[in-house]
């Protein structure tokens, strides 16, 4: 059974439908890509899974439980973490405080906290150097590292990642994608929304292409990108 099953999901903002009959699955320890142009409904899909948006109909099932109507704090505690597109680092919290916020719900011991922080610092050594700095003083790349670290520190089973490479220098993008692969190796499943289809398709096991709130194509990255029409749509 899949870790995440989205079944016939419909959602709307006010009265404008934004998701129509969206269905897909993510298995344990796999990276699934969600591609499409701006406004295709990718971000909305992630928001609906995290409970930021109440679906109009359809089901979201995580590890066997229907989470469609649950609140974000409950969904997080089930094992889903969300890294939104704008990262939403807490600007007036230090790097360490930002990371610890991702651990608050876990109530672990001081020792366990240190161990978990250390794991993040080994993944992104730059964060260790910036440990006592305020979130707002970080560069874009460092903010993305912090956003990933903050989501990762609580060991989620599924990570929802929205446009992690957006606005970052190519070197930093490589670092971020290396981290994404490392996460998968640790057994974390990822649902990855990405404009940089070439980069993303190199790490995805399967992918879905969305347009106007619907899924129009599904398959391995190879299969999907073999379709000339799809390549045109994604401008790859």
């Amino acid at each position, binding site marked *: 059974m899949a870790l995440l099953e989205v079944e016939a999901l419909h959602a709307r903002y006010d009265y404008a439908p934004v998701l129509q009959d969206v269905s897909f699955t993510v298995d344990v320890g796999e990276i699934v890509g969600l591609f499409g142009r701006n406004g295709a409904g990718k971000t909305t899909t992630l928001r609906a899974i*995290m*409970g*930021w948006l109440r679906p109009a109909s359809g089901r979201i099932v995580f590890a066997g439980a229907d989470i469609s109507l649950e*609140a*974000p*704090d409950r*969904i*997080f*505690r089930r094992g889903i*973490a*969300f890294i*939104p597109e704008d990262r*939403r680092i*807490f*600007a*007036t*919290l230090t790097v360490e*405080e930002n990371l*610890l*916020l*991702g651990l*608050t*719900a*876990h109530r672990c011991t001081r020792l366990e906290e240190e161990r978990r922080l250390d794991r993040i610092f080994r993944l992104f050594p730059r964060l260790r150097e910036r440990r006592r700095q*305020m979130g*707002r003083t970080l560069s874009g790349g460092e903010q993305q590292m912090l956003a990933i670290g*903050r989501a990762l520190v*609580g060991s989620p089973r599924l990570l929802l990642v929205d446009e992690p490479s957006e606005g970052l220098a190519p070197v930093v993008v490589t670092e971020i994608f290396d981290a994404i692969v490392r996460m998968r190796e640790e057994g974390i499943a990822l649902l990855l929304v990405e404009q940089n289809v070439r980069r993303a398709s190199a790490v995805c096991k399967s992918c879905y292409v969305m347009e106007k709130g619907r899924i129009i194509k599904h398959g391995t990255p190879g299969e999907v990108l073999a379709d000339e029409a799809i390549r045109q749509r994604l401008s790859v």
Partner: protein
Amino acid sequence: MQDLLSYLHLVVLPQMVDALIVGAALALVALGLTMIFGLLDVINLAHGDLYMLGGYAAFTLIGWGAGYWGALVLVPVLVAIVGWGLEELGIRPLLPRSDRAVVTLLLTFGASLMLRDFAQVVWGTDTHAIQAPFSGVISVAQVFVPAYRLFVFGAALAAIFLTWWLIYRTRIGAVLRATAADPVMVASFGIPVRWVYGSAFMYGCGLAGLAGVLLGPIYAVFPTMGHDFLVMAFAVVIVGGMGSIVGAVVAALALAQIQGLASLWIPPVWAETLVYGVMLLVLIVRPAGLFRRFGEA
């Protein structure tokens, strides 16, 4: 020259010391107000009446034999519990609404009227005196200050410091600052934001209750005491910046000085008007107040 020095020493300095004490107590009320606004976007019009309730609760508890020190410990807890009731039953159900600023204003206004009427029914309209726990006068820099007033200053300062420490130096404080800035993201890390709101509201109300006990022996307690104090606390919060912790403390101390010193030379009623004049000026020149909302960059 000698005259001026002795005027400064015998008239101005004592007035400043007095204003410092009033300012510290005012900061307690303003702190709660600004914390609640910073986190919940709620303007708590009942805050002054919670301060009043603190005064009356102290009066009653001392009458029952709890003693001043017993009241000092119990009253903030009791007022915090009343605040919890207000938040849980009144404010929380309104928070999801898009017009929450207006409806919670109306709600807390109603709560304010109810609390004031409640006080009049239970304690009557007379002014009640509270006995200070100790008397005596202490000389600071050759200015004679009643020992109790110094105690009030110290206790208020301790509570202010505790609040600052909680918000800026602890894990709970990190959650509060994060929630003030981005509650949805905080919730997405498994933290039940409504508990954060509830406990911050309770804490703010507890501070108002504490101010009520502390100032009771100085000003005595009467049903409208909260109203007068709240208007002043609002001026403080507006000048300091709505939702700013540091701003509330700085503005409370500054406005108390302005009012205290001005009333040396102009009638006290006009001194109060001057304070609102300063508030108006700040609103025109710097509408967001002098300091940033906590949690915001």
